[in-house]
């Protein structure tokens, strides 16, 4: 043959099917390997997540109450009840407040802390301090704050120093209970977003920031035009974590509102728990869970869309 390449006509004469068959075999092998690796996780997710979710949706269409009605089809009755139940409306509004608060407060606070602490002196100590509440059980944090907000508690004592005697029951008034619990919630949860944002900040390459400095940007402009856009993927993750935590907030409310008569109106999660375990309305509680789950799913989907957009922007 000699040291030469095949001519075009020789190449054209080759069997096209055989040329492709190596690739096909390779792809098949890869698919099989992939399936084997994914199998344990798939099995786990199916039995402990997908199956229970499906069952929950099914229960929401039955008349299940404690030991009866599990097989009894109720159609949309539970959902119709949601629309007319005054507790549901109040709980949904409060959950909305929770979501907005958890979208804004922990993210803004964590970002501010992260930027302040990034590379600062004693930042390790400060980071540990801000993260510390996170390691408490939420119920324990709730108990601590319960006493902070008590009529004879720390907060009123502190306020008394400035404005004379205060004996406000922060956790007993409709107007203050949700904000009060949100403050405790943010106090406990801000550590994680802060740490995530610090990691995000540390991962931003130094060069574009220095380039912006030389390009004439003031520190504020560098942050606004370079740091913040490059931090966007992390911010998005933090926002999602916070918002989902806001949707599913339960422990803090449950513990801190223990003596509040309108407790079940404070969030959808509390209402769901109350309907299921106090009121024995299992099917109705399932319907609440379906609605809550649906909203969370929608938010997660929105996050995926945004994430993709941000990734494309930074790619």
């Amino acid at each position: 043959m000699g040291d030469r390449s095949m001519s075009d006509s020789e190449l054209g004469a080759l069997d096209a099917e055989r040329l492709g068959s190596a690739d096909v075999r390779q792809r098949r092998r890869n698919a099989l390997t992939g399936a084997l690796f994914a199998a344990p996780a798939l099995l786990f997710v199916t039995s402990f997540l997908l199956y229970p979710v499906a069952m929950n949706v099914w229960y929401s269409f039955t008349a299940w109450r404690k030991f009866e009605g599990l097989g009894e089809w109720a159609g949309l009755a539970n959902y119709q009840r949601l629309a007319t139940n005054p507790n549901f409306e109040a709980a949904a509004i409060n959950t909305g407040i929770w979501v907005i608060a958890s979208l804004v407060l922990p993210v803004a606070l964590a970002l501010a802390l992260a930027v302040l602490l990034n590379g600062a002196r004693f930042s390790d100590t400060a980071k540990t301090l801000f993260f510390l509440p996170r390691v408490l059980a939420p119920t324990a944090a709730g108990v601590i704050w319960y006493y902070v907000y008590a009529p004879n508690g720390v907060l009123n004592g502190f306020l008394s120093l400035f404005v004379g005697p205060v004996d406000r029951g922060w956790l007993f008034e409709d107007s203050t209970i949700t904000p009060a619990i949100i403050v405790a919630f943010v106090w406990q949860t801000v550590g994680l977003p802060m740490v995530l944002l610090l990691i995000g900040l540390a991962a931003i390459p130094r060069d574009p920031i220095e380039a912006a400095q030389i390009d004439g940007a003031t520190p504020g402009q560098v942050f606004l035009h370079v740091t913040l856009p490059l931090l966007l993927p992390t911010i998005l993750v933090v926002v999602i974590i916070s918002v989902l935590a806001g949707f599913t907030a339960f422990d803090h409310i449950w513990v801190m509102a223990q003596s509040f008569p309108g407790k079940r109106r404070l969030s959808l999660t509390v209402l769901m728990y109350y309907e299921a375990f106090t009121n024995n309305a299992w099917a109705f509680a399932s319907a609440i869970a379906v609605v809550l789950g649906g909203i969370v799913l929608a938010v997660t989907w929105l996050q995926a869309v945004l994430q993709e957009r941000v990734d494309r922007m930074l790619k």
Partner: protein
Amino acid sequence: MAEVRLVNLVKAFGRQIAIKGINLVIEDKSFVALVGPSGCGKSTTLRMIAGLETVSWGDIRIGGEVVNDLPSRSRGVAMVFQSYALYPHMSVRANLSFGLRISGEPRAEIDRRVADAVEVLELGPYLDRRPSQLSGGQRQRVAMGRAMVREPRVFLFDEPLSNLDAKLRHQMRAEIKKLHRRIQNTVVYVTHDQVEAMTMADKIVIMRDGRIEQVGSPAEVFRSPANIFVAGFIGAPQMNFFRGRVGPGGAIFVDRIGEPVLAEPGAFVLPAEGEEVILGLRPEHIVPENHGMVPRRSVCFKATVTMSEALGNETLLTAAFGGVEFVARMADPREVEDGETIEFRIDSDRIHLFDPVTEGTLRRVSN
């Protein structure tokens, strides 16, 4: 007028002193290359001029003004980074105009300057792309454009070509040189590649371990290296060094080379007879017999080839005699077998002599 003047400049990182009191004048409109091995302080020096590192001691003056405490943005400098440092979330157009936009330049002025840079650097087709959609060479041009539009007094380059492949590097070298000719501002260019420094700069500053070893034109530092370090650093393949001894009448005796090398009379300040010197010879000045010009005055010796690297137009021969290895350049090459013994000629008029203790050159300073 944008002369850059470094006066007793010191940079300390904690207890570690990175820049050890350097003094340097970079004339207005000149192209100065800072070269040296990694860790020699060249990038730190550049970053201090840029305002990205504080000055521990001494002064940096740009256009006569001490800028030590001025932030980068007020120094009138622009910098091209090794990593290009483009803003990944902005289009090429936005990258180019960023500096002008944030400083509030009028729209028409921004457009004019960006258009100029785009034309010079041929970036027209890429204006709406993001950096990730560009090749290395294109990114490098955007980085240069971004520096250009600011019309800086001083252009700083930090190893701008080291991430490019050989062909592109060659091309960009020419472009940067052309750019300098066109816009005529002061350029400080950091590189570890002596070829870049030699081909582009008016003046080369060779640094080692936080100190300046030599400053001079490319020809000066090549022809008259101030010490063994510079001699070894400038020129590729690097200069060969042999131990020799001074004999009567300026003759240099090297072990196992039968005849002494006779230094050009009066060119060197030689130590007393019997003292040791280091003889430096560039590969092109050790001529294999019958390959290349026969030197006017030369000394012959034989050595055994241990390796040959054929480059096409020439072959680099690594050869040894008496345990000493050296590299010679074979012009108009023929096939050479490893182990072949070849006769070489040392060009006596092109030798370098150094003091083995101080490592400084023994060449007489001509006035």
